[in-house]
């Protein structure tokens, strides 16, 4: 009985069933608000970043990249204050760093996407 009902429902070209079973399956990644976010590059950043790092995100678009960083860069911790950052995730904002920081090592993750180990610049 259940099989018959299920087969009947599945055969119906109705959108509620398509939506319910999500006929066009999603992958494991976030559904970004902006198309074209390089998810693989952000996942790579997570593999390179040490667990005890404190990272700053400078990105365009900011929201998507910051949220993905919160997922992929765990167990490193996010900071918003550049003075507390030991690493910077730079996404589509050029090679520059926030004022007061200098690059110690730079990993290129993708097109204009960098993971940068940083130190505070001498003033």
């Amino acid at each position: 009985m259940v099989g018959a009902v299920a087969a009947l429902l599945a055969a119906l070209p109705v959108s509620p069933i398509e939506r319910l079973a999500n006929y066009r399956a999603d992958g494991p990644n976030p559904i970004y608000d902006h198309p074209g976010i390089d998810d693989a590059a952000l996942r790579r950043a997570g593999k390179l970043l040490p667990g005890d790092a404190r990272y700053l995100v400078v990105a365009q678009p900011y929201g998507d990249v910051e949220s993905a960083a919160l997922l992929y860069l765990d167990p490193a911790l996010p900071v918003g204050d550049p003075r507390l950052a030991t690493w910077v995730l730079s996404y589509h904002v050029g090679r520059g760093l926030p004022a007061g920081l200098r690059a110690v090592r730079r990993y290129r993750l993708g097109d204009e996407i960098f993971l940068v180990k940083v130190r505070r610049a001498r003033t």
Partner: protein
Amino acid sequence: MSVGRLVAGVAGLNSVYLVVGYCLLTPFLRRGVASAASYAGVALLIGAGWTGVLLCIAAVAGATTGVLTFALVAAGVAGAGLLSRRLVRRPPATPEPAARQQRPWEDVVATAAAAGLVAIAGFALVGGFRSSPWLDDTWGWWVPKGLVLSSHGLVPGLWQGSWGFIWISPDYPLWWSSLSALDLRFVGGIDLRAIDAQLTILVLAFLGALARLLWGHVRPWLLWPGLALVAAMPELFRQAQGGGGDVPLAVYLALYCVCAVLWLVRRDPLVLVGAFTFAAAAVQIKSEGAPQLLVLTAVVSLLGLRAGLRPLLRLWSAVPVALALAAPWFAWRSTHHVHGDFALGRALDPSYLSSRTSRVRPAVHALGEHLISPRQWILAVPLLVALALLVALRERSWPPLVLPLVVAVDFFFWVWVNWSDPQDLHYRLSTSAYRVVDTAALVSAAFVPLVAERLVSRAPP
């Protein structure tokens, strides 16, 4: 990230919830595999509820909420459940109602509805494992908060903003964040389909729990179509695929209401334990859980006026204990000056409220539109109101009207929240109105079979 690991991880975690729940239910279960199996939905939600509540307390106490802490908490709760079987006097089992002779058409209706329900559940489960959350709040802060809790515990700098970074909604309790991060730990990586799968399983457990709790109180040809109605509400599984905390909050609050009503009407000790557990979990899911619990309890208590003071006192004593379990989180928030946008003092200030009455009408309109939309929650609320009115007229008494009153009061609670909230009203309504009505919708849908049973029942009121 393979589908096999996804399914195995989520199934493994939920198996632990299930075992923990069954251990806690031990004193109440009857003999027989089929009877015990019928409690699976209740057991899963009780297991997830208690492990989550205790993980929140552990986090405030300074522990991380990773797999090790989870294993210790789960083992402790399960052990306590098994021990309670020896220590607690076994309450008399509520007798299963005698099977009533079913007419053939009643059998057909019940069987067809049950088959439809199982088919919808199957599609939803598949869909859950094939969906990544569409709500960016889910992967933007619900899950990341849990990952930090799992790796480091509560890091005050991230909740206070002193590192130049602050979570969205830092005041929210930690239950859903902790559980969603556990799913990712069990899956072994960042696979966000695990979050939707977990929420879908919680919703399916909700349907199973409703079936179990209402079984015997509602005849099958009303019960199964009633549950099929809940499962068919498009917004329920759509939001489960969004991944946010509103659906679990609504699930636990709706079950709390059902258990509270059944306790006041039937006095089954199991449902009192259920009411306590579901209340304790609801309070730890979102900040709105505690005030809604108080409001819902106040209205449901009207049913107790005829039940006598004793059952009411027992229900009322369960609620403060459930709230007290969240006290460590409230205390931590206060100590670390963590707060959200909503301020209770301001929300109760008559001069402040009178200066912004223009917000009331749009809030009523937006919330009401979502709640009674057939495309979202079918017609659960109008159906409940109509059925309750019919019963009240037939019996010439007011208690049947208490159930729609519960829904109405929850609705106006949200009108008041939107009225008093400092955020831009248009932004607030467009981003949250569709999901804050979840509790009112699920409570309505859960009450429909009970009221329908009363309507067709020939028993004297």
